[in-house]
């Protein structure tokens, strides 16, 4: 490197903070850092949500869809056969409720019996409003028949289940005696439940006997009336 360049570099390098200046700046820096105890905002656990626009949009859409869906479902709750929202009740709300609530044989029996009760009440409401024309009458009959069969099947399943549970909980010696569950009604909660389910189902049918007769759903005409009782 030539002399001029070396001198040039030397002159420029001479620019520096003195020890005093360096220390003074350092102290000021430390003081400012320590004084500067500004409360830093704690990142919200929802910060990712607040700053992710696409997540916000998706969430908003979900809220709208759920709100709309909930509004429609609630409106459909009291709808009757032949009305616009009735399919929402029977194809959306009820299957969803079945999925959520009916998870044991006993619960399933209760649920299907409730639905049968609902079908019968709908038929009575239509009859009261003189809306049971020929086409709707047929639709309602078929609906009640189908639901009746479902309810009976579930009650029967619940009875099977409770008998199996009773046997499983009985000692071998008891099974062979007269007091065993296969010999007769021993009582116990499962059997009581089964009887309850059957009693409830029968009660529903009795309560709505009038509409069942009007729709010709008694005495072998359909699955509505229980047999063998």
């Amino acid at each position, binding site marked *: 490197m030539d002399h*001029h360049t070396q001198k040039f570099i030397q002159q420029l390098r001479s*620019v*520096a903070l*003195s020890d005093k200046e360096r220390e003074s*700046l350092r102290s000021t*820096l430390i003081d400012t850092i320590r004084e500067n105890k500004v409360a830093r905002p704690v990142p919200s656990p929802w910060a990712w949500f607040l700053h992710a626009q696409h997540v916000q949009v998706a969430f908003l859409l979900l809220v709208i869809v759920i709100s709309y869906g909930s509004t429609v479902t609630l409106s459909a709750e009291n709808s009757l056969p032949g009305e616009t929202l009735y399919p929402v009740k029977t194809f959306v709300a009820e299957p969803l409720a079945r999925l959520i609530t009916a998870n044991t044989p006993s619960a399933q029996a209760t649920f299907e019996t409730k639905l049968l009760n609902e079908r019968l009440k709908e038929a009575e409401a239509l009859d009261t409003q003189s809306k049971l024309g020929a086409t709707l009458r047929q639709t309602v009959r078929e609906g009640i028949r189908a639901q009746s069969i479902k309810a009976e099947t579930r009650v029967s399943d619940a009875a099977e289940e409770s008998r199996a549970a009773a046997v499983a909980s009985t000692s071998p010696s008891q099974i062979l005696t007269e007091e065993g569950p296969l010999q007769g009604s021993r009582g116990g909660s499962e059997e009581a439940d089964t009887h309850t389910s059957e009693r409830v189902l029968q009660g529903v049918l009795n309560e709505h006997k009038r509409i069942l007769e009007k729709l010709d759903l008694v005495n072998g005409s359909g699955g509505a009336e229980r047999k063998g009782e």
Partner: protein
Amino acid sequence: MKDEPLEKDLLAAYDAYADAIFRHCYYKTSEREVAQDLTQEVFLKAWSYMQSRRPVENMRAFLYRIGDNLIIDWYRKRKSQSLDTLVEQGFELTDTSVRVEEKAEMELALKKLRALDPDDQNLITWRLIEDYTPGEIAGILGEKENTVSVRISRAMKRLRALLQNSK
């Protein structure tokens, strides 16, 4: 205290780069007090950024970037007068820490430095004054090392020519 490691990192950076940042600010402003203020501001801004827990990959490059931004702001405040104009009109360096002769030589050296293209100024300063390697300069500029080496070589040629012509 959660901020202790950050404070340590900042002070380590200060100890390593304070002089270089000061020189950088001084070359651009020719005012010692201003350069000191800007140097302090550089590290305070760095601290503010570090407090947000955002990572700093290259501290040196980061500090120079802050410094350049502050220098630009400073010039904007003084937009009525450019530094070159001030120097031509006989504006003197406000540096009372050096003797008169040294002051004159310094003014001359700065004048020569500023006669170079601003990019060349930085390259020359970093390579010859601060002794940064081409790789380190590449890290500051965010460019490839080979590209920086070529640019340094060309800047050196231009500097030699300038110094030869100003003899």
